[in-house]
C-alpha cells in the first residue's frame, strides 16, 4: 500500500507499530471487528499479533461490566511478537467497555467512543454516576473522538427495511470502516469479505457494506481526525501467508500429519474452553484422513484415542486444565502400554473451573509430574499461535518415534490469538514415521516389549496374523508383556521406561541464546510467554543493557545444554504466567541455579513493560 492512496486534506503519518483495542458488549461483534481488522492488516503485509479477551458467559447481561468483550491487535512494520502491552487506540462501543478499559489506554492515545451508547440506562449499568463523556479529563488525557455510531448507522440504513435490532447489529462495521480509513486500508477487500461472510443473507451483507462505507466516509469528512496513518509492510520472510489462531494451527498440524503420512489421525475428545476449536476444525476435515469422535466425557475422549492407538491410528486428544485432571489416570495407562498419543492441554486460569476464557501457564508441573507412579513422558510447549502447527506435528512425530504419550502445552492466549503463518514447503515438515510390526520378532514369536537399541518397543496392531498379544495396565514382563508381579522386573521396567524418554533427548535441539552468549542477565521463557520475553529482551538491549534470552520448547526432557547456559549468566530471570513453576523446576533440575521469578497470573499475557522494569531493577 502506498501513501498516495490518501485523499488530499489529511496528512498521512508513517508509523512502525500500533496497538488497537476494540471493546464493547458481548453482543456488539467486537471479536469479529478485531479479527477483520487483523485480517486486512495481514493482507496489507503487516506483521500482526492478537489477543482476544472475552467473558466466559456467552451473553452476560447487555451493557454490564461483566459482558465486556475485547480484541486487541498489534500491527507492525517489523516483527511483532506480542499483541502489545497497552493500546495506542481504544475503540469503546459502550460505557461498560470504556470503564473497564480506559485505564489501559496509553496516555495521549486515541480514544474513539460510540457516544450513542452512552444512554442513562447504559451509564447506570456501567456504574457511572454521571456521563464520563462530559468529563474534561478525557479531552486532556487522550486524543478524544466521540461519535454517535448508533445514529449514523441508523441513518446509513434508513429505508433499508431492516428491523431496528438488525440495524443496531451493524454498528461494529461503522467502527471498522472508520479504522480502515484511519489506517489507509483499501475499501474493496473488506467489502468483498463482508459479502463472503454474509453470503447466505444478502440483505445483511449489503447493510453491513453500507455501514462500513459510511464509517469509512465519515472518517474522511468529519474532520475529527487531523491525520491518518500507514503502517508499512513488514519484511516477513518470502512466502505465502495466512493468519491462523493457535487452535486452528494445532488442528492444521494434526490434519497435515494425516495427509503427509497417509495414516488415519484419530481425535477423541470432549469440548472444553478454550480447546474446542481443535475438535471442531478437525471434524470438518473428514476427507483428509481424520476421524473425530466427541466422547461422553474427558476420560472417554482419551480412552477412545488410546483404543484407536492400539489399533494403529495416530491418536490425539485435546483438553484444558479441568479436562487434563480427568485424563490423568489414562495418561498413566498410555505410559505403561507404551502407545503413541498426543494430548494437547490448552491451559486456562485454574484451579478448578477458574477463569475458562483467560490464559495461564499453571499446568506445567502437572504436565511434568501429575501422574501416580513413575510415569515420565515428553512435554512440549508451543510458543506462538502459528507455532502450534509445528508443535502439533512435532509432538506426533515424537509420540510415534518413541511409542509414548506426549503432552503438548498451549494456552488460552495462543489458542485464540492470531498471527501470520507462512505456509511451509512439504520438505520443511516434520516426518512422522509410524512403523508397524508385521512379523514375529523372536524365535517365531511376537514379544510386544522386546525393545530396539533406543529402547522403543514394536507396534503390532490388530489384524496382523500371528502377532496377537495382550497389553494392559498391570506391570508386564519385560519381554512377553504378560502380567508380572516380580519386583525385580518392575524396577527394571520403570527404569527402562524412564530411560526411553530420556533417550528422546536426541530429538531436543541445543538451546540457542538470543543476545550475548554469557554475562549479565538471561531471560528464560517457555510456551506462550515467548513473544513478551523476546520483545522485552530486544527492548532492553535497545536500551544498551546486556540481556539475553532463551526459550524452552521442550520441558521434558530439558535441552542438554540448558544447565550450562543458565550457569553462564550472573542472573537468570524466569518469566511465566503462574506462581513460579518453571523457576521451581529449574531450581530442582540444576542445583545452584536460583532464578529470579517474574510472574503475573491475571489472565493476560505478560506485559513487556513490566518485565523490562523488573530486569532494570535487577541490573
Amino acid at each position, binding site marked *: 500500500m502506498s501513501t498516495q492512496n490518501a485523499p488530499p486534506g489529511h496528512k498521512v503519518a508513517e508509523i512502525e507499530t500500533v496497538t488497537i483495542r476494540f471493546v464493547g458488549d458481548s453482543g456488539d461483534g467486537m471479536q469479529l471487528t478485531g479479527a477483520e481488522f487483523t485480517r486486512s492488516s495481514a493482507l496489507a503485509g503487516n506483521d500482526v499479533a492478537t489477543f482476544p479477551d472475552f467473558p466466559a458467559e456467552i451473553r452476560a447481561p447487555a451493557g454490564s461490566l461483566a459482558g465486556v468483550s475485547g480484541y486487541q491487535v498489534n500491527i507492525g512494520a517489523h516483527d511483532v511478537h506480542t499483541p502489545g502491552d497497552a493500546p495506542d487506540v481504544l475503540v469503546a462501543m459502550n460505557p461498560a467497555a470504556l470503564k473497564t478499559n480506559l485505564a489501559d489506554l496509553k496516555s495521549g492515545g486515541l480514544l474513539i467512543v460510540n457516544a450513542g451508547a452512552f444512554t442513562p440506562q447504559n451509564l447506570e449499568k456501567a456504574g457511572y454516576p454521571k456521563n464520563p463523556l462530559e468529563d474534561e479529563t478525557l479531552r486532556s488525557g487522550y486524543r478524544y473522538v466521540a461519535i454517535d455510531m448508533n445514529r449514523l448507522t441508523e441513518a446509513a440504513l434508513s429505508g433499508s427495511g431492516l428491523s431496528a435490532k438488525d440495524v443496531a447489529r451493524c454498528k461494529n462495521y461503522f467502527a471498522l470502516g472508520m479504522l480502515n480509513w484511519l489506517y489507509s486500508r483499501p475499501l474493496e477487500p473488506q467489502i468483498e469479505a463482508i459479502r463472503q461472510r454474509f453470503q447466505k443473507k444478502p440483505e445483511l451483507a449489503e447493510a453491513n457494506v453500507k455501514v462500513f462505507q459510511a464509517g469509512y466516509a465519515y472518517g474522511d469528512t468529519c474532520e475529527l481526525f487531523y491525520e491518518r496513518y500507514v503502517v508499512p509492510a513488514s519484511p516477513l520472510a518470502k512466502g505465502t501467508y495466512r493468519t491462523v489462531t493457535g487452535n486452528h494451527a494445532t488442528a492444521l498440524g494434526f490434519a497435515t500429519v494425516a495427509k503427509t503420512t497417509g495414516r488415519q489421525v484419530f481425535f477423541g475428545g470432549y469440548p472444553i474452553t478454550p480447546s474446542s476449536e481443535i475438535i471442531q476444525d478437525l471434524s470438518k476435515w473428514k*476427507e483428509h484422513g481424520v476421524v473425530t469422535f466427541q*466422547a461422553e466425557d474427558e476420560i472417554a475422549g482419551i480412552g477412545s484415542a488410546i*483404543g484407536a492407538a492400539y489399533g494403529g491410528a495416530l491418536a490425539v486428544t485435546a483438553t484444558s486444565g479441568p479436562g487434563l485432571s480427568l485424563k490423568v489416570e489414562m495418561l498413566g495407562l498410555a505410559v505403561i502400554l507404551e502407545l503413541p498419543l498426543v494430548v494437547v492441554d490448552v491451559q486456562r486460569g485454574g484451579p478448578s473451573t477458574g477463569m475458562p476464557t483467560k490464559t495461564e501457564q499453571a499446568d506445567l508441573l502437572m504436565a511434568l509430574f501429575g501422574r501416580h507412579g513413575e510415569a515420565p513422558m515428553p512435554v512440549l510447549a508451543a510458543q506462538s499461535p502459528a507455532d502450534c502447527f509445528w508443535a502439533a506435528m512435532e509432538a506426533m512425530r515424537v509420540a510415534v518415534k518413541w511409542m509414548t504419550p506426549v503432552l503438548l502445552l498451549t494456552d488460552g492466549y495462543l489458542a485464540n490469538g492470531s498471527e501470520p503463518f507462512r505456509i511451509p514447503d512439504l520438505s520443511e515438515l516434520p516426518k512422522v514415521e509410524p512403523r508397524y510390526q508385521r512379523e514375529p520378532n523372536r524365535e517365531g514369536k511376537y514379544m510386544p516389549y522386546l525393545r530396539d537399541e533406543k529402547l522403543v518397543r514394536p507396534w503390532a496392531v*490388530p489384524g496382523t496374523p500371528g502377532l496377537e498379544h495382550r497389553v494392559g495396565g498391570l506391570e508386564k514382563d519385560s519381554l512377553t508383556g504378560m502380567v508380572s508381579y516380580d519386583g525385580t522386573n518392575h524396577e527394571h521396567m520403570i527404569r527402562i521406561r524412564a530411560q526411553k524418554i530420556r533417550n528422546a533427548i536426541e530429538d531436543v535441539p541445543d538451546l540457542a541464546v538470543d543476545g550475548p552468549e554469557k554475562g549479565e542477565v538471561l531471560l528464560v521463557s517457555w510456551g506462550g510467554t515467548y513473544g513478551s520475553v523476546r520483545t522485552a529482551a530486544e527492548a532492553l538491549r535497545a536500551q544498551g543493557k546486556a540481556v539475553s534470552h532463551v526459550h524452552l520448547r521442550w520441558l521434558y526432557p530439558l535441552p542438554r545444554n540448558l544447565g550450562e547456559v543458565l550457569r553462564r549468566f550472573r542472573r537468570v530471570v524466569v518469566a511465566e504466567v503462574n506462581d513460579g513453576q518453571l523457576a521451581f523446576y529449574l531450581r530442582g533440575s540444576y542445583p545452584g541455579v536460583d532464578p529470579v521469578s517474574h510472574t503475573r497470573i491475571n489472565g493476560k499475557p505478560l506485559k513487556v513493560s513490566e518485565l523490562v522494569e523488573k530486569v532494570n531493577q535487577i541490573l
Partner: protein
Amino acid sequence: MSPPPQATAPTYTKKDFESGVDPRWCPGCGDYSIINQVQRTLPLAGVARENIVFVSGIGCSSRFPYYMRNYGMHTVHGRAPSFATGLKLSRPELEVWVVTGDGDALAIGGNHFIHAVRRNVDIKILVFNNRIYGLTKGQVSPTSELGKKTKTTPHGSPDYPFNPPALALGAGATFVARSIDVEGPHLGGVLKAAQEHRGTAFVEVFQNCPVFNDGAYGFLTEKATKPETQLRMEHGKPLLFGKDMRKGIRFEPRTARLEVVTVGEKGITEADVLVHDAQRDDPTFAFMLANLDHSPGFPTPIGVFRDVRRPTADEITWQLIDSARSSSRRQLSVAEFLAAGETWTVNG
C-alpha cells in the same frame, strides 16, 4: 490398514482361542464357564482370530483378555467401552468385545456403558454380574440387593440395585440378552446371537462368586426350583415356563400389566400366552420383560430380550467420511490444504 483378505474362512477349535496362560480366578468361579463358552462360540463364526479384540476394565472379569489368544487390552476401571469405541470407530473391520463386571460397567463405568449403548457402536459388552465386588474382597455393588450385608454395608445396603437389561433398554440398546454362567448351552446360544448382532450387543451373565457371594443365583440354578424360576425367552415362541411348561406370561390389556397364567386353568389356552418378539422395534415389551424378576411371583427371564438392526455408530461415521471424500472434487495437496482461505504472498 485393513487386514489382508482371507481366501477361505479359517477353521478354528476352542484351543485356538486359549492364550495358554492359566486363568487365575478362584476355584469354582463362574468366570471359568463363561470363558469356556466364549472359546467354544468364537470358532463357529469363522472370524479370523487376529481380527478379534477383547477389551476389559478392572475387576475379576476384566482379566479375561489375558486368557484369550486374540488381541486384547486390559485397561482402567470402568472405561473399557471408551477404548472399544475408539478402536471400533478407527478400525470398523475389527470385531470388538468388552468384558466387564457389575461394578466396572455399572458403577464407575456407568456413563461409558450407557453412551456406548446409546451410540449403538458395533461392540459386544459382556457384563459378568455377580452382584458383589470380588477383587476388592466383598463390598456392595450397584446390582447388590437392597438390604444386602457386605463389608461396606454391615447393616444392609441402603441402595436399590440397577436392573442391567432395563438400564440398557432405557439407553436405547439394540441387543439385550441375559444368561447364566452354569447354563452352558444357553449361554453359548446367547453369545452366538450377540456375535451375530450388528450394533451394541449387551449380554448380562449371572455369575456366581463362590467366595464373596456364593449362591446368589441358587434360586435360578437349583435343579429343583429352576423350572419355576427361569423363563427362557425364545423369539417367536410363547413365553412358557414351569415344570410341565404350562405356566405362561399374559398381557392383561385392562391394566397394561404382565401376569402369570396357567394354561388349562380358568379357560386359559396357549393362545393367551404372549409370543416373544425380540425383533419388535418398540422396546416397551422388552422393558416389561426385563422388569419381571423384580416383581414377586414372576420368573426371571433369560435369553434375548431384544435384537433389532439399526445403523451403528461406526457405520454412520464411515458413511460420513466416505461421502465427504466422494463429494470433494479431488484430494487437496498438503500445500493446497494449508493455503485454504485468504492468503497473501511476500516476495522477500
